[in-house]
């Protein structure tokens, strides 16, 4: 082996080591804040006001579910968790169903101005939700659904649809024509074709869209902050009112934030692939 290649091998060994050290440090930077939240939520509140969460490493006996117990006994919080579910599930299902119908129509039906309509929808992809807050608040106030679950759900559906239609239309357009024609020859009607052929074939795109929309709505605070009231507020809104007195209520904030993260994290780890493709396709939002 020549001297030179030994030298370059040494260099690559050293640089490989540096890369590893760098990535470990970065990984710690990314992990520590979340671990801090978790451990904070597992310490007794009176300890939280005097010392940092890292104390549990020297005093593991501090770990307790006390804060969780107390939090889950608080009906405001449990109600708000229920509201999060009641908002997120319909908003996701409606976007998937309505988006699929329209996506299919844009992909495979013939009607005047079809492509222009579709481009119009694509144009709406980047419209910031901020534009709609004031007008929709007035509109909902006039028709009496301001502060209700229905209002928030509708808002999320409206702003979820451009992406849904866009994603699904592109995916449905790839379905081989022969499949649709064969089903048609077998005498399938429009609805049957849609539910039996198009929806199943669109599975991957629908999954990606569903997961994306689910997390989007679950994690939303701004829309709910404006369109819900004390009875319909989701967990994000319930917690933000606590943030205003940050300091002596870590025992509510830390476990509350962690509970609000559990479902998204489970979804994230269970459906990584779909989530990634949803995020990649959703780069527009």
């Amino acid at each position, binding site marked *: 082996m020549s001297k030179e290649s030994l030298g370059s091998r040494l260099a690559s060994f050293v640089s490989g080591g540096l890369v590893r050290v760098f*990535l470990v440090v970065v*990984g710690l930077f*990314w992990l520590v*804040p979340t671990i*801090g*939240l978790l451990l904070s939520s597992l310490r007794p509140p009176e300890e939280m006001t*005097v*010392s940092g*969460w890292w104390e549990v490493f020297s005093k593991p006996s501090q770990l307790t579910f006390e804060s969780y117990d107390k939090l889950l006994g608080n009906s405001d919080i449990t109600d708000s968790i229920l509201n999060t579910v009641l908002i997120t599930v319909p908003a996701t299902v409606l976007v998937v169903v*309505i988006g699929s119908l*329209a996506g299919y*129509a*844009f992909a*495979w*039906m013939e009607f005047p101005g079809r*492509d222009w*309509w*579709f481009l119009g929808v694509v*144009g*709406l992809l980047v*419209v*910031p939700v*901020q*534009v*709609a*807050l*004031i*007008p929709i608040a007035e*509109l909902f106030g006039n028709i009496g659904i301001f502060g209700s679950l229905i209002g928030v759900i*509708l808002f999320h*559906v*409206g702003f979820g*649809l451009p992406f849904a239609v*866009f*994603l699904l239309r*592109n*995916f449905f*357009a*790839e379905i081989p024509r022969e499949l649709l024609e064969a089903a*048609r020859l077998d005498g399938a009607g*429009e609805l049957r074709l849609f539910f039996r052929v198009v929806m199943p074939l669109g599975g991957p*795109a629908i999954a990606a869209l569903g997961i994306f929309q689910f*997390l989007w709505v679950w*994690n939303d*605070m*701004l829309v709910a902050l404006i369109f819900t009231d004390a009875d319909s507020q989701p967990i*994000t809104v319930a917690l*933000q009112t606590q943030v*205003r007195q*940050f300091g002596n209520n870590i025992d509510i904030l830390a476990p*509350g*934030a962690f509970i609000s*993260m559990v479902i998204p*994290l489970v979804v*994230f780890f269970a459906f990584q692939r779909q989530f990634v*493709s949803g*995020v*990649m396709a959703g*780069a*527009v939002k």
Partner: protein
Amino acid sequence: MASTQAAGGGAPPAAPKSRRSVTGTRRAVAALFLLPALVLLGALVVYPIGYSVIRSFYDQSGDGFAGFDNYQALFTDDGIRTALKNNVIWVVFAPTVATALGLIFAVLTERVRWGTAFKLVVFMPMAISMLAAGIIFRLVYDQDPDKGVANAVWVGVHDTFAQSSAFPKAHPGRESPLEAAPGGGFITKATVSAGTPVTLPLVGVAPDQMPDDAKRAVQAKADPDGITGTTWQDFTRGKGVGTLGGVDASELGYAGLRIEAVKDGKVVASTNAADDGTFTLPAAAEGAQLRLPPDNFKEPYNGVDWLGPSLVTPSIIVSYIWMWAGFAMVLIAAGLAGIPRDLLEAARVDGAGEWQVFRRVTVPLLAPVLAVVTVTLMINVLKVFDLVFIIAPGSSQDDANVLALELYRKGFSEDQPGIASAIAVFLLLLVIPVMWFNVRRLRREVRR
């Protein structure tokens, strides 16, 4: 933007040459399929755009036409100007730093076996809400170094290089042998001599502020060959319990306190007190005055005020990057996977070093992806709201203000819907180039 890829990645749909309806659909059926989507989009997205535009030209009550007054307020109102300035900082730094980090992570993770695990860790914050991320960073940035991890690390590093003092509020009590020294600290009124133990009693250190290694104070023994003495907290809780100027059972020594012997303004000897507060100085200190230099009594270094007026915006941007660098990394890694390996190999065979390969081959080939990621993040950053709303404490929220937050305040707590609408329209105008770009790109694909 990146969105021409349907789920699962892959090439944009190669639409059939003629996309005549396979189903021979009647128009009425098509209309039924489209109706729910179009009605909702019309009512919830299109109508508000029009309404906001019109509303932005009316005054706050909505009755009088105001012309461009609301838009003028965008540039004259102090609050909005701070918000604008901060938005510029956000748009310039957050997307570029996140994209640069994403690029670095994507390239480096290809070289380690646990790259996937690393990616998972960095990508994970994408799944959680900005509210949760905000609370997470509120904890991180806690001012108290005993509670906030950012300041704990910062103070730890700082104190490694600069000795911190242990007795910030200590001072002589009544009838003390000590007096304030010129230039700070305290000095004995009398000179000291060997064989006579010195007492240096102080008071004023809160019990929980005493050093952990401080032990019960001990009366120093006389030593004919040197100066001995004790320095301690001369205070026992309870009226008249302790002896003034004498060492009592429950009193702690000032472990580590610095003591200097001064003769004619010159330091002739110095030492630090032991854990029980005793100290010994060499015979050279005979006839000197003992001084406790001011370094002993400095306030301890308390770290950085991360969420104070001057640092609050950069601090929140860091939390944003924590959330979104993973997004950049994943998109760039996908782009990286699409680069033909032979191209990189060929460059290496030609003698290019790793850095050159990165600079001259990888980055140029990734340029389109990098542009998409940066622009996407810019749009996202324009609308940033939750993180600022949650992380900035009330006292510095004005300093951290951004347009989306100002819109919320004006529209929903200050009852100025005209100005809020103008901010909304302004935000919309900023994203119109991207809207136009999306539509133009898709038009080519759609019409075949």
